[in-house]
């Protein structure tokens, strides 16, 4: 059953014939489309073997990175993804640009649209920012959500799905455990949605009660507060970053206390399946959510996630710009 929220999300993101035109949230996107993103990203992984790691798909197009919130890895990989598609890339650090002089967000976006940008990659601390821009401000520019508040980080979820698929093959029989700061994590929410859509057998989130969102029971996953129970025989273990900058209350006694109970160490990893892979969206707080020996160990695929991030971002950028192009062609024809 598609509920009202997911069909609204689908309406904004998809063209009338079901192709991607914005990429804002995993919610509402069908399994076939997520699989198409993974397949396309896999093909882009192949391009990374060539001496020239570029394809000419977005030659003459412009991609604007609009980061209203700090980011290093996401911003760098989006920039590289757009450049590897041969697009011209504009990276704006909004805190230091016109908005600081009093220009409103709407004016900034309308100006960029007037400069004929084809895609906006948007990161914002407000949940729903990317959706607002796609539905209300510039619907004819492909909007890619690079993280909005606590809401969603869909490209991170998809690069995680690509990493899982490349290491584990099919999704159906996997047990996937996500550990840590679920409360503040837009990554966890997007991951659980993607894992469910792709048909993963068992999805577990593991956290202290204070770091679980109140609506976690509606997430279609199992909830554990004890690390050992949650990790038991898991095929994929994802440690999340403890988001210290978003902690505005006394949610944890101390980082040491968190590490003692929820830290992914060599000892605790032994509870998972012996061939389990270890993932982390970065940046890593070593000794807080993960032990260095695990982060750098043989089961870690954390740097592979970064490489896959470029391929996934190339896939969604090219698919969304393609969807917008075809929508416009149809509008002109009718």
């Amino acid at each position, binding site marked *: 059953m598609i509920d009202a929220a997911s069909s609204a999300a689908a309406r904004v993101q998809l063209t009338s014939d079901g192709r991607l035109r914005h990429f804002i949230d995993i919610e509402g996107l069908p399994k076939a489309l997520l699989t*198409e993103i993974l397949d396309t990203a896999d093909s882009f992984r*192949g*391009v990374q073997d*060539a*001496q*020239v790691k570029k394809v*000419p798909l*977005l030659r003459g197009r412009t991609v604007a990175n609009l980061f209203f919130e700090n980011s290093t890895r996401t911003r760098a990989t989006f920039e590289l993804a757009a450049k590897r598609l041969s697009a011209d890339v504009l990276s704006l650090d909004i805190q230091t640009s016109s908005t600081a002089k009093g220009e409103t967000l709407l004016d900034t976006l309308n100006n960029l649209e007037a400069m004929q940008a084809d895609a906006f990659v948007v990161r914002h601390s407000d949940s729903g920012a990317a959706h607002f821009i796609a539905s209300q401000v510039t619907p004819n520019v492909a909007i890619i959500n690079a993280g909005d508040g606590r809401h969603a980080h869909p490209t991170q979820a998809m690069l995680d799905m690509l990493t899982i698929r490349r290491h584990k093959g099919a999704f159906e029989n996997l047990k996937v455990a996500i550990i840590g700061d679920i409360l503040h994590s837009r990554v966890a929410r997007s991951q659980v949605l993607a894992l469910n859509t792709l048909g993963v057998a068992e999805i577990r989130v593991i956290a202290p009660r204070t770091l679980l969102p109140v609506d976690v029971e509606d997430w279609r996953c199992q909830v554990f507060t004890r690390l050992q129970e949650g990790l038991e025989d898991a095929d994929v273990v994802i440690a999340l970053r403890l988001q210290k900058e978003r902690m505005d209350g006394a949610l944890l006694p101390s980082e040491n206390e968190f590490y003692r109970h929820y830290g992914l160490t060599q000892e605790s990893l032994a509870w998972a399946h012996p061939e389990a892979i270890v993932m982390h969206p970065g940046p890593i707080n070593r000794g807080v959510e993960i032990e260095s020996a695990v982060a750098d160990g043989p089961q870690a695929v954390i740097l592979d996630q970064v490489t896959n991030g470029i391929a996934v971002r190339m896939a969604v950028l*090219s698919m969304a710009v*393609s969807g917008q192009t075809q929508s416009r062609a149809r509008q002109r024809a009718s």
Partner: protein
Amino acid sequence: MPLPDIPPLLDAMVADLETIIDEHDLDRQRLALVGIHTGGVWIADVLHRRLALPTPLGTLDIGFWRDDFSHQGLPENIRTSHLPFDVDDRDLVLVDDVVMSGRTIRAALNELFDYGRPRRVLLAALITLPGRELPIQPDVCGARLDLPAGERVKLSGPEPLSLSLVTQTREIS
């Protein structure tokens, strides 16, 4: 219009390639075949076995190099290109099933040069059709066909390989 049987066409292509290898004194140890997905890979696979070349077969999917993204958008089901050898300074034979406009070959050459600088690239095609839009001609060709306007030829395979006529719906080949 009757379409030709494929085995004699493949025989002719193998013989022509043998002649070219001798005439140009190409190094068999380093000569590599590169098939263009999908039909070109099937043909290249047969030629590769018949010529008994030691270098493994390369495959290209030119989906990301097509020139019609603005009109058609991203093609579906793009496979990973796979060139399991160093392209630099190597003699290559690009293989496709049907050459018509020449745009696929243009895209394939662009992609190929992103992997390195080959010494020489030859082109082999099972069938060529009139309708060239670029200055591209195969060095080796199984058969040249003249089809009525709007008709195309399609290769099915890989086992058995067979040709059939279809009404044209796609714009490049």
